[in-house]
């Protein structure tokens, strides 16, 4: 019995380090760029035209239109090499563990237009594993065919097809978790959340057809399938994060967007349904994500910009199997739900100085067998980022490259259903509290 307890506590200790790694990844994701200077060179635009903070990630309405137009807009002045580079160095101060200062990420973007109708975004990411060993993987991909400037009745319309590897990354409003690369971390999570364990992000491939009518009404429908494990491995991904085998997958998105020049707001719904076998040889779970999102931006004359978004996704689950129960007479639930909510507020001054606050909550229905030891997977965390991005504006030293210095605090107030002893270890064993997962980082990002 004591041997078994020790083994369980060892496993939980390993999980602590796993979640420290997840927290670190979220820190990097929150400061990483999603646009590339290649687009700035292609269009003649400054970075700040598409991103309020001149380094991303949140898009301005103009940035949304650029994305909807399949990354094909141009200044018409010849061919531009569609390549950009990003380097990120991080000084990381975790609440538990050693401080590190490292080159944490080096990325190559192949991003731009091929023709008036075809464009794309591909990110090839090289990450430091913390021991100065670097591994390269194919990160986000979004390849588009678009038909622009069409007339539907008396109104303008745009239609397109996106081939991508993360449901939600291609979204026009770009507030869904796979677009912001920010969703609630936790011991479980929705399919649409890239911070969920065994997330779909970058390990699936799919196509969606989308349309924009009268500049305001956006609709999208598509389907995805998971990449074979061998392909995931070839693309640089460890098999431990395999999202499993997906079938009968459907994606749907609808949003109303209103650009009032000085202000912007949107309201939308999103749905993703799939049968998932995890492990691949096992029975399938029926999963249905249904969510809504609202956003608001005050843009004004670009000197003071406020951007707010709220994304609320509920996943209904019908489990294909019941895990073995350690509790006599108690079995796991056959149905369950997981609920992910993300609220983000960003203030940007002079398109240069910014403050972003995110509140991330993940909750789930009670299931003492699946979510040990407390029976609920609930996790609450907050992210606060203060940054300075001096370039990438019309009047700055350079409009087509940028630097971002950011200080980020990542704070957990609850994890795995508890704020204290989150892995429920027995007396005499080292206890991990939720705030032991906290981390602070200083990040320098350079894109050119």
């Amino acid at each position: 019995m004591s041997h078994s307890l020790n083994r369980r506590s060892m496993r939980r200790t390993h999980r602590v380090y796993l979640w420290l790694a997840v927290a670190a990844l979220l820190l990097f994701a929150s400061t990483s760029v999603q646009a590339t200077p290649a687009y700035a060179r292609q269009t003649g635009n400054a970075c700040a035209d598409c991103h309020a903070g001149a380094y991303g990630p949140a898009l301005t309405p103009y940035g949304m239109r650029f994305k909807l137009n399949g990354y094909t807009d141009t200044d018409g002045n010849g061919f531009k090499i569609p390549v950009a580079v990003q380097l990120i160095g991080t000084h990381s101060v975790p609440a538990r563990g050693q401080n590190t200062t490292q080159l944490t990420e080096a990325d190559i973007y192949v991003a731009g237009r091929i023709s008036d109708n075809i464009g794309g975004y591909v990110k090839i990411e090289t990450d430091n594993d913390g021991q100065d060993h670097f591994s390269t993987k194919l990160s986000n991909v979004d390849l588009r065919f678009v038909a622009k400037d069409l007339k539907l009745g008396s109104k303008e319309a745009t239609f397109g097809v996106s081939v991508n590897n993360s449901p939600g990354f291609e979204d026009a409003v770009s507030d869904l978790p796979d677009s912001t690369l920010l969703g609630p971390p936790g011991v479980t999570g929705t399919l649409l959340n890239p911070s969920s364990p065994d997330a779909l992000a970058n390990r699936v491939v799919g196509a969606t057809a989308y349309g924009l009518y009268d500049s305001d009404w956006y609709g999208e429908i598509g389907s995805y399938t998971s990449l074979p494990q061998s392909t995931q491995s070839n693309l640089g991904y460890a098999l431990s994060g395999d999202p499993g085998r997906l079938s009968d997958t459907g994606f749907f998105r609808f949003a109303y967007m209103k650009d009032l020049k000085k202000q912007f707001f949107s309201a939308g719904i999103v749905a993703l349904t799939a049968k998932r076998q995890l492990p691949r040889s096992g029975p399938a779970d029926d999963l249905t994500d249904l969510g809504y999102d609202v956003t608001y931006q005050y843009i004004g004359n670009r000197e003071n910009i406020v951007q707010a978004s709220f994304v609320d996704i509920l996943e209904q689950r019908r489990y294909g199997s019941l895990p073995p129960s350690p509790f006599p007479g108690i079995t796991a639930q056959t149905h369950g739900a997981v609920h992910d909510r993300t609220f983000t507020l960003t203030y940007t001054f002079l398109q240069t100085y910014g403050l972003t606050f995110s509140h991330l909550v993940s909750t789930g229905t009670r299931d003492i067998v699946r979510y040990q030891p407390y029976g609920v997977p609930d996790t609450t965390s907050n992210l606060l980022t203060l940054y300075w991005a001096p370039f990438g504006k019309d009047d700055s030293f350079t409009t087509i490259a940028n630097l971002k210095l950011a200080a980020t605090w990542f704070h957990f107030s609850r994890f795995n259903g508890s704020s204290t002893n989150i892995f429920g270890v027995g007396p005499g064993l080292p206890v991990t509290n939720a705030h032991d997962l906290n981390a602070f980082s200083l990040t320098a990002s350079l894109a050119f």
Partner: protein
Amino acid sequence: MTKLLWVPFLRCVAAVGLYLGAASMSPFALAGDASAGSDVFKTECSECHSVKEGRNKKGPSLFGIVGRNAGTAPNYKYSDALLQAKWVWTTDKLHSYLSQPAKQANPGTKMKYDGLTDSKQLDDLISYLGTIH
């Protein structure tokens, strides 16, 4: 005493000067507030146009736009519609062009703009553009 006589005379000269100056300027340029027009530019135009010389975005640079012949910004690939438009961007022409949808003002143009219907903002904007040279 001499000083006292000079004051009303100078006032008359100043008044006449102001009148003559106003008569020689475009009424739109006179009506607008260039400082407020800078903000209008940022809101309405800056995503597609730069005011820096030689800096083209999706639209051409607006450096020196007032008084420029249409379709002549260097290194910008204009639509045939604007190349064939043989007009000069006077303040009057800008006022007329920008107060309506671009596709209506110049059918065939690449420019996507619904027009600025707020006459005060339009006057401010054109005044601001007049200072960019």
